[in-house]
């Protein structure tokens, strides 16, 4: 039950984009079309889950036993960078159009603070292995949810009569703000 709670909380309540304000760059950059937003969400979910697992292993099997936890950030960057490279090669092999659509934002997952934040938060909260896996997947799905919702809204916005000064990034940021407000409504679900 606790795990389920945690999963739901990672998706809705402590959503990485709308609660922690992490990973805003792809959230605004790849949210113009729903299909590329879904793919981006999948890629981030994959990287988040594997990062959570691998960084937990490194943290608990190497860094903590040898009292090297000050190396956390460097070690996690290593994990994330390698994983993103892997995902990039994979997507390029499977779907070149998707590779083109994600463009620069794919390698930029490396520097996506949501993923670094996940690895660091998971170690800060002292999660067990299973909790880390659930937390990683949930956070990734939360990111996917946020970016897909945003893409849906922005596809509608393309047809709307937006005032001249707010066109483009302006209205996108306003929408993001309103979405974040809406998501605070979930905060009563857990303590």
């Amino acid at each position: 039950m606790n795990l389920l709670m945690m999963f739901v909380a990672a998706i809705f309540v402590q959503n990485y984009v709308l609660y922690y304000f992490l990973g805003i760059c792809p959230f605004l950059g790849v949210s113009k079309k729903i299909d590329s937003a879904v793919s981006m969400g999948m890629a981030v979910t994959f990287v988040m889950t594997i990062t959570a697992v691998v960084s937990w292993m490194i943290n608990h099997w190497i860094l903590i036993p040898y009292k090297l936890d000050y190396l956390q950030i460097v070690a996690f960057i290593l994990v994330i960078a390698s994983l993103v490279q892997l995902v990039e090669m994979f997507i390029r092999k499977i779907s070149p159009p998707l590779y083109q659509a994600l463009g620069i934002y794919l390698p930029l997952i490396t520097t996506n603070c949501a993923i670094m934040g996940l690895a660091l938060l998971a170690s800060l909260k002292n999660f067990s292995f299973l909790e880390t896996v659930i937390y990683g997947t949930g956070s990734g799905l939360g990111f996917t949810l946020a970016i897909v919702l945003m893409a849906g809204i922005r596809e509608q916005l393309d047809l709307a009569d937006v005032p001249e000064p707010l066109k483009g990034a302006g209205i996108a940021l306003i929408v993001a703000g309103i979405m974040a407000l809406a998501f605070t409504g979930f905060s009563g679900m857990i303590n």
Partner: protein
Amino acid sequence: MDVLLPILTMAVLGFLFSVGLAVAYQKLKVEEDPRMVAVSESLPQANCGACGYSGCRAFAEKVIKGDAPANGCPVGGSETAARIADILGVEAGEMVRRVARLHCRGDREAAKNRGRYLGLTTCYASHLVGGNKQCSYGCLGFGDCVRVCLFDALHMDENGLPVVNEDNCTACGMCVDACPRNLFELHPIDQNVLVYCRSLDRGPAAKKACKNACIACGICSRACPEGIEIKDNLAIIRDYKKIEPEQIPALEKCPTDSIGRFHKSDEG
């Protein structure tokens, strides 16, 4: 030891990850046609879409498949075409440069004015109220085309007609779109015969409005029935390649000087 341990740990971790990536790279390597890279490199990479495909990459794919001609990139010109043809081992095909040409000779001396035009000094505004000249097909002379030209290929001459500097013209088509009377057309640079009129008025009316108007007398179409025809009171060049060089002097008998050799310097 305290220093060595972190260094060693990171080195081992880094080594493990790089081995993993190297293995993954071998498994997931994308075989790309080497011609694809070569063709892409010889394209301008402007992704302008002038070839009719969605970008340089799409064009390169089509060229390699053989669906697009090697000279399909108008921006790169014949140089790019030759390079692509070289890579693919096909004929480049001839690529004739095109230039914009004005189909009017109704300058201030030749064309009569309807009255005094005091409105906005743009062709577009003048055209909205029917123009300042008697001829309702001819050049209005306010230079909308000169203003849109990005390549410094157009200027107004002393008689109020735009002149194309063919060395600078890139056939971008801005002037073609800008002219409210549609007097510009893009022609292959080797086309040397041109009808300098777009007037569909009947002969006497056309002649009254402008000394250089085509009156559809038919001298040119009789001299060269293959290449020139008269349609709607106007001579039209159907196919300039069918006009033989020895027929050109006959065209210059045009009573209103509205058809003729393009480069006056070619004469003689």
